């Protein structure tokens, strides 16, 4: 089971070509981070994976079904997508109602709803806010509410768009924990991020995009120590990576422990 993007291009109705010949297979159980400059096509690309954008050329196959044949809402049962801005989604008067909303929309049994909400809330660490109006909470926590709502709908793949924006230390730690817990639950996590520390620490596969194309696909070292890719995708090395480079430490160092060891 996998999300397969085959020779897919995407042209917006206004004629703007946003993606050119994208090929990528994301297998179940992987953790993938998509990085690259704004306008590189990252969001358009993931919107293709959940059927919001149907490729104008080529195909996107989610677990054997072609996205062209299904509505987005149907594909959403397999591929969940948390938008960058949680406020485009939240509208219920309590956090609990927000997380439960889609489950009730699908008319799931009460017991099932309870269980799913419990797990989603636990993973996103928002148990303390269940009876509060989500809009009374600060932005970073609203973001977790939006994530919880998608987790509760139990998709096999979850796409997160810029989850670390505005997060503090605790928030970033919660995200890391959530991602590894989701992996244990068998959920594939795909994220778009500008936060390279976050990408390096949590994702074993990094996809770099630039100018409507995928320019590199590999592990963190392959991406960040390839100067050509770094400059084309306009990404920044992590601070430790940068330090290692300036100190001319050999061995493509990205992590603190490695660097300490090598000095």
């Amino acid at each position, binding site marked *: 089971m996998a999300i397969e993007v085959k020779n897919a291009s995407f042209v917006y109705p206004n004629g703007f070509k946003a993606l050119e010949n994208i090929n990528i297979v994301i297998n179940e159980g992987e953790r993938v981070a998509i990085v690259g400059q704004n306008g590189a096509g990252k969001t358009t690309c993931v919107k293709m994976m959940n059927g919001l954008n149907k490729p104008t050329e080529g195909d996107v196959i989610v677990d054997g079904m072609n996205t062209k044949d299904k509505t987005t809402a149907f594909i959403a049962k397999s591929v969940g997508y948390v938008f960058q801005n949680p406020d485009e989604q939240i*509208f*219920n*008067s309590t956090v609990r109602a927000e997380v439960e909303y889609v489950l009730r929309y699908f008319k799931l049994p009460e017991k099932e709803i309870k269980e799913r909400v419990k797990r989603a809330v636990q993973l996103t660490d928002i148990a303390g806010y269940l009876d509060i*109006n989500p*809009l*009374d909470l600060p932005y970073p926590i609203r973001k977790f509410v939006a994530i919880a709502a998608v987790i509760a709908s139990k998709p096999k793949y979850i796409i997160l768009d810029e989850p670390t924006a505005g997060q503090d230390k605790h928030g970033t730690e919660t995200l890391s924990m959530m991602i590894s817990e989701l992996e244990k639950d068998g959920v594939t996590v795909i994220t778009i991020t500008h936060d390279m520390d976050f990408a390096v620490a949590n994702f074993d596969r990094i996809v770099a995009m630039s100018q409507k194309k995928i320019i590199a696909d590999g592990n963190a070292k392959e991406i960040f120590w390839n100067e050509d890719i770094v400059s084309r995708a306009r990404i920044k090395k992590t601070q430790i990576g940068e330090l290692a480079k300036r100190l001319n430490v050999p061995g493509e160092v990205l992590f603190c422990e490695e660097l300490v060891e090598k000095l």
Partner: protein
Amino acid sequence: MANQKGKIDKLSLFLIPIGIAVNFIGGQIAILLKLPLYLDAIGTIVVAALCGYWPGIVVGLVSNILNAISSPTTLFYAPLNMAFAVVAVILSKRKWFKNFFKTVLSALFFALIGGGIGACITWLVYGFDFGSGVSAMFSIPLHQTLGLPKFVAQFIAETSIDVLDKVITVIAVFGVLKAIPMRFLAKLPLGRIYIKDAEMYEDDED
């Protein structure tokens, strides 16, 4: 608390343009979802319910003025939107929008006012006869086949078209009012009505 009489407080002021835009977008979402409804009074009702008479009336009036830029005859129907604002404030103060059934019931008021004032305006503007547009499609058969007087036919036509529209409208209003965050309500003239357990916080001086 936050406002003096006759003067619009600062936050309400900034809510007015949003209310106006919502009036427009409501209809556009209806088109997006292919719903055969206008849904163009949500902004007026929500702003009126939260901020009071003046802000609500301004939202109604300006919505019509802006509409007039592309279809000037809508200008005549401005009193309609303004009346919605007044009714919304009265109902809001009586806490109708806190109860789902009362809210749905209120759609009937809005539809009657819409139909009543709407028919009067049509009557006046169109030289004491039928208007043009959707309502004419219903009012003329009523007049022709049942032999109802023209004004009555126009009134019935406009009201019945309005009922479904206003039911959806007030349900949306209900949902929004329920979900407005407390920190925001605290700053609005009629916001206190919608704060859960408002009294609980009032008396404890620390």
